[in-house]
């Protein structure tokens, strides 16, 4: 029998499992936990990014500053409008397109793949391209609309508050509807076809089959999709900043942009952090409430 060399200490499976979880935990703490804790800490300090080491504890003053600032409330309102509009459109269009893509047609998988394109392309690229597309004089959007006679004069997509908000919503819907489509399509494929067959036998038309079979089956996935999309959309920074920089004026400011402006342009990182804390609390409470309402509704049905 050959002599065996020295062996590494014998660890249990549990210990090895912990060992493999440690890198994730370290990453989560460093890149998620620590920034959150730091942001909460900074919310109670006066922090000038150009003067590190000169942070001053000021209690709730940053929160008083933002709650007294009309721009904070405007940004909050605009963020809400932007989020609700985007989510509504993403959900409706996403479900509609998913239903269309659920048809067993030859080559349908090609279309499914193409629909992912907006989701894959980096936001920076999309925003810069859309800026050019929306250019009132040389942009392809106005050119196309004029060519088909829908408009006679150029639309200034980014020059008025209403149009700028609509344009940023359009960009957001275009980019993230594929996420809704993927989730809904996956669920659609698990719905037993017998349910539809039975409904047809009972004389249910297309709309009744959708309302009484498809929609209830999609409810759970839509609950999750809406929650996640709402959180992500409310926090969105890059689409708006790259397309309009929060303008014209401050008409497309949301809280993420407000926080960024306070932190970097205004050199008030504490105020920016306080804004982030308010956003976090708002979204947390909103999500809990939303999930409770839907879980409560399910319990009632049960």
């Amino acid at each position, binding site marked *: 029998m050959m002599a065996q060399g020295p*062996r590494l*200490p*014998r660890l249990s499976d549990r210990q090895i499992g912990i060992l493999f979880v440690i*890198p994730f935990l370290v990453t989560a703490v460093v890149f998620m936990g620590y920034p959150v804790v730091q942001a909460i800490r900074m919310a109670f300090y006066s922090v000038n990014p*150009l003067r590190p080491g000169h942070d001053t504890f000021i209690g709730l003053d940053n929160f008083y500053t933002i709650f007294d600032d009309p721009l904070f409330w405007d940004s909050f309102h605009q963020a809400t409008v932007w989020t609700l509009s985007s989510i509504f459109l993403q959900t409706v269009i996403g479900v509609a397109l998913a239903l269309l893509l659920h048809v067993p047609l030859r080559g349908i998988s090609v279309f499914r793949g193409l629909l992912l394109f907006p989701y894959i392309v980096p936001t920076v690229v999309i925003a810069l391209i859309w800026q050019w597309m929306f250019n009132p004089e040389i942009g392809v959007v106005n050119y196309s609309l004029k060519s088909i006679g829908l408009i006679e004069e150029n639309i*200034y997509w980014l020059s008025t508050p209403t149009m700028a908000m609509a344009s940023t919503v359009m960009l957001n819907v275009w980019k993230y509807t594929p996420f809704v489509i993927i989730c809904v399509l996956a669920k659609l494929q698990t719905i037993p076809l017998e349910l539809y067959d039975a409904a047809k036998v009972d004389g249910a038309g297309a709309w009744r089959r959708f309302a009484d079979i498809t929609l209830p089956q999609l409810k759970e996935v839509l609950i999750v999709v809406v929650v996640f999309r709402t959180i992500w959309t409310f926090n969105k920074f890059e689409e708006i900043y790259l397309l309009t920089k929060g*303008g*014209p*004026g401050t008409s497309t400011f949301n809280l993420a942009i407000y926080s960024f402006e306070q932190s970097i342009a205004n050199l008030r990182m504490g105020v920016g952090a306080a804004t982030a804390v308010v956003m976090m609390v708002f979204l947390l409470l909103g999500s809990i409430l939303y999930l409770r309402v839907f879980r409560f509704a399910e319990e009632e049905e049960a």
Partner: protein
Amino acid sequence: MTDDKLHNDLTRRDLLTGTAVTAAGLAAAGSMLTRPSSARAQGKSGVVRVWGEPGPYAGVAVDGMNEWAQKNAPGLKFDIETIGWGSVYVKLMTDLAAGQPANLISVESPLAYQLMAEGLLEPVDDVIDRIGRDRMIEGTKWEYWGKWKGHQYVVPAHHQPHLLMVRMDIINELGLSNPDTWTWDDLLNAAKTIHEKKKMPGIALALGRNLCTAYHFAALLHSAGGRMFDVANKFEVVFDSPATVETLEFIDQLRPYMPKGATEYSFLQVVDSMVTGKAAMVFYWGRVYGRAAEEAPEIFKNIQSFNHARHPRTGNRYNWNDFQGWAIPKQNNPFINEVKEAVAYYQTKREWLIRYVHSLVPNVSPVYKDVASDPRLLEHPFFKTKKDTIMTYYVNSLKYASNTGNELLKGANPLAGIVHGRLILAQTVQKVILDNWTPAEAAKWGAQQLESVRKEHFRLVI
């Protein structure tokens, strides 16, 4: 469990354990490999990061610096990074906050004053001594670029005013008077006449939420006799004034004769307006000529620049002159000495300074007497057809020079950089044109914002 299976399980466990330990070791080693640049710089090799605004001239300066490097520090390479005007403040503040600014930056004077007062820049008195303290062009002083509490912090690169740029073919066609004689009323009348008779925007200014709007507004404000702060009186906010109201009213009066999209206009859209023939007049710096010469020769042939229209009451015709210079961030900068040497090198070589000016005529104006009077300066082809315009940018505008960091050249104000970062002036304009506030309300709002800046950052000016 058989002995073989137990043996395999033990071997797999050993493998897993070993892998985990190895991964941890690699991570630790990787962190050691990413040594800070300062460690590498001790060997004086590496890339010296230089920030410049869009345009070829910063690249020319960097070429000059690289010539020094080739002769004296072959391990170093100066590398230009171009930052758009709209991004400079944010990017600079972000990188300074992270402690990783570029090693040399080309900045406008209002921003330079803020950085000086914050203690973020390296003094360059030694560099100025080598360049020659008596070299400044008439009508300028070293301090216009950046002097604070007895020390110079900025080496001049160029000065660049924005002027009234006009399509003379249209002016002559409509029988309008010489733009050099205009008052604000004449300018308004010209914009209106052009709009009505030629069915085109008479004038294009930036009205977006950006620095270009601030610079256009500031020139008009100073001409009207207004200012943001009174430097001589503890930087008291004096923005809420009849002059500010008058300026906002004037912009509002010009608004109907501007392109419809002007509310989102920034630097490049104003240039586009002139080069594409959309508008007949703009306020702009000289780079329009370079673009027009390349893309629209007919437009180039017909444009001419003048000092701004005079304010009807004060007679002033201030421009916004960006006294642009080289500043050396001192945080985490391992190349301070090398940067000083390189800047001094190219600034004492007249050939490089002429090349610098020639790289974008007439956008970058010479700052040293010997360069301005060198016959080689006139060898640029634009001098054949645009000599008056060029001399207006280079020389004749200086007596009307002003900017937000040194209002009416009465003294440096570090608060101006913060004002620009917050886009207070642009927002004040937008309160009137977008939110339909009265000019008086907007002026009050702007004054409140400026007061807030003064209170928060008063330590910079005491």
